[in-house]
């Protein structure tokens, strides 16, 4: 696909802060415009557009799913680890770092096809040499496979390793907030 993959908000042409009513009416508008029943002359285009809108609406119209989705788009995978220089007396660490970086790359390339294998690689990479990016990616995968408490633990670890990185701190906050809301939603059910 040459086109950039749009996120659900972009598909429905709304702002991420849109209210439920705005989401509903945006979806209706999309259906009027794109539904194949209304576009018998271009069925493929209509099917594609409608399918996208339906998928986006399915997630965004459910408050809990929307919160999780918001969190997932905020927590995107790190695709590279930074270069590091090691002093002459730290050749052992350098080796560990290089091994870890290879495993990290494998994890990244496996991410699309096999989340479980990718997670194993990141875990191995983290075992070999502790880097914030690696443990953060583990958190991303835990989030996607719906293991939020493991995810939170991983994000905290990343934040501990790089206390100055505000992104990690933000993710930890967001993750905690999401978990609180999920608990509340479960409790009220």
């Amino acid at each position, binding site marked *: 696909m040459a086109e950039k993959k749009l996120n659900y908000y972009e598909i429905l042409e709304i702002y991420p802060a849109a209210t439920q009513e705005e989401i509903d009416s945006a979806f209706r508008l999309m259906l009027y415009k794109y539904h194949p029943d209304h576009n018998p002359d271009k069925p493929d285009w209509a099917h594609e557009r409608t399918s996208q809108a339906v998928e986006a609406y399915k997630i965004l119209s459910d408050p809990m799913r929307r919160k999780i989705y918001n969190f997932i788009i905020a927590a995107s995978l790190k695709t590279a680890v930074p270069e590091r220089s090691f002093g002459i007396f730290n050749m052992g660490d350098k080796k560990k770092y290089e091994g870890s970086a290879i495993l990290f790359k494998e994890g990244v390339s496996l991410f699309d*096809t096999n989340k479980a294998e990718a997670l194993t690689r990141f875990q191995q990479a983290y075992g070999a040499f502790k880097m914030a990016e690696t443990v953060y990616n583990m958190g991303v995968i835990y989030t996607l496979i719906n293991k939020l408490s493991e995810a939170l633990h991983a994000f905290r670890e990343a934040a501990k390793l790089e206390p100055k990185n505000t992104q990690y701190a933000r993710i930890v906050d967001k993750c905690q907030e999401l978990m609180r809301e999920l608990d509340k939603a479960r409790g009220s059910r």
Partner: protein
Amino acid sequence: MAKIIGIDLGTTNSCMGIMEDRRLLVIPNDEGFRTTPSVVAFTKEGGLLVGNAAKRQQVMNPENTIFSVKRFMGRKFNDKVVANDIKLLPYKLSPAPNGDLRIEVFGRAYSPPEISALILMKLRKDAEAYLNEPVDKAVVTVPAYFNDSQRQATKDAGKIAGLDIVRIINEPTAAALAAGFDSKTKMKVAIYDLGGGTFDVSILKLGQGIFEVMSTSGDTHLGGDDFDQAVIDWLVAEFYKTDGIDLRGDRVALQRLKDAAEKAKINLSTLESVEITLQFIAVTKEGPKHLQAVLTRSKLEELTRAIAESTAIPCEKALVDAGLRPSEVDEVVLVGGQTKMPLVREVVKKMFRKEPYLGLNPDEAVAAGAAHQGSVLKGDIRDILLLDVTPFSLGIRTEGGIFSKIIEKNSSIPTRKSEIYTTTKDDQSFVRIEVFQGEKPMATDNKAIGTFELVGIPPAKKGAPKIEVMFDIDANGIIKVSAKDQATGKEQAIKITPDSGLTTGEVDTMKNDIGKDFADKISKGAAGAAKQEYKAAPGAGASDEGLPGEASSEQGKKRSIFDIFKKKEG
């Protein structure tokens, strides 16, 4: 553009409608009735009867009168459902060479779609006569739980009948659509559908045009016929008490009892008491005997209370499956003629703790929804949106036989979804994509609906190739699956057609044969004679349905010894 009619092709009765100038018009059959029994009969004289005429001779000609054919649509002969029914049916079922089910009449085997096609042809013919123009397109409804092959069999029936089924929609969805619950408000609706022979209850979640079926439940052998049977049993017992004669062995008497019981039941929905008179019901040495009985509404309710109350159990199950309390259901819509009975409404009210929605005629609600949808497809109506949902999850078999779901049950259609898979062996040059439908974790526990292979994958380590498997379901529910190797761009796709059922060739042959049969034999049948017996004005009020008009003198002697009603003041 040609007209698109809406057809509720029911197990017991069928109904059709069309939108004209944005108003619903229920199309009556050639006898003026707004519903047509889904019954096909082959007479000993070589005639063919469909509808009311077939139903009227059902008890006297049971081996050759096919009813409830809908139960067998898209089913195999060795299906559990079939094994249960076969014992109860007076007509004969047999297996086809490919394991499909056939119905045998006078030595000829008919597929269920062929019998359905005969009903559709009759409906089509009546619609054409009434509208005075050709009709070749229809929206047809099916139960929400119908699977792919059952839906496909319904489409085949249309093809055999020469009717293009432009869309299949779920019955509860159609009823909700007819009630006008389509649009902005989000709500949860229970559809309580008590028909002639089946009971279905569905809980729908509506909003923004999406009609999500949250749960369905029911009883495939519970319906108006059971209420009739309770009345027949009572009449037989009463007659035995007064005259000492058991009528159960006499087919002609039973047919008359059945007709009389149904009519008494229908009238008791509005009247407090009816008198049932069947003259010359039996003949003894002393002379002819007449059956005369007074049935009150309270007696009818006493006879049928247990049947009516048994519908509460599936309702409860549907609520539990949907995860709802009765108070969380916003509206209850009644569908099916039997729901006109006050006792049934009372049971519904008790179950859901609210008055049912009264804006619809229960006999016509489903056909009305189908007609609405026909109008949308024709382009006449733009403000009604209907997004149906897939009734089952879809996915493929992956390593270890695990079923990997790609499209979850209850996804709105149209939909497109893809997942990326990879190889499990080094230098694997092809992948076999096996498509399954169902909810079980192991693939083989679900229904296999198609298989294809993607070949020519360049040699690579296992796990390296990226193969995108994409599922497309269009607005008609037709499934397309494709697999694409992202490295080479090579792509392979299939359109899923059910593995059982009829081939295109078979459908074409049947279309010719059945079409010819219908044209040749329908006029030969007793339809003409029967027609004179029952006359009701087209568009007669709903409460008159299934009832002939008052006996008029020119309808002759035969009419007078048939069922006669005297209405009593309530």
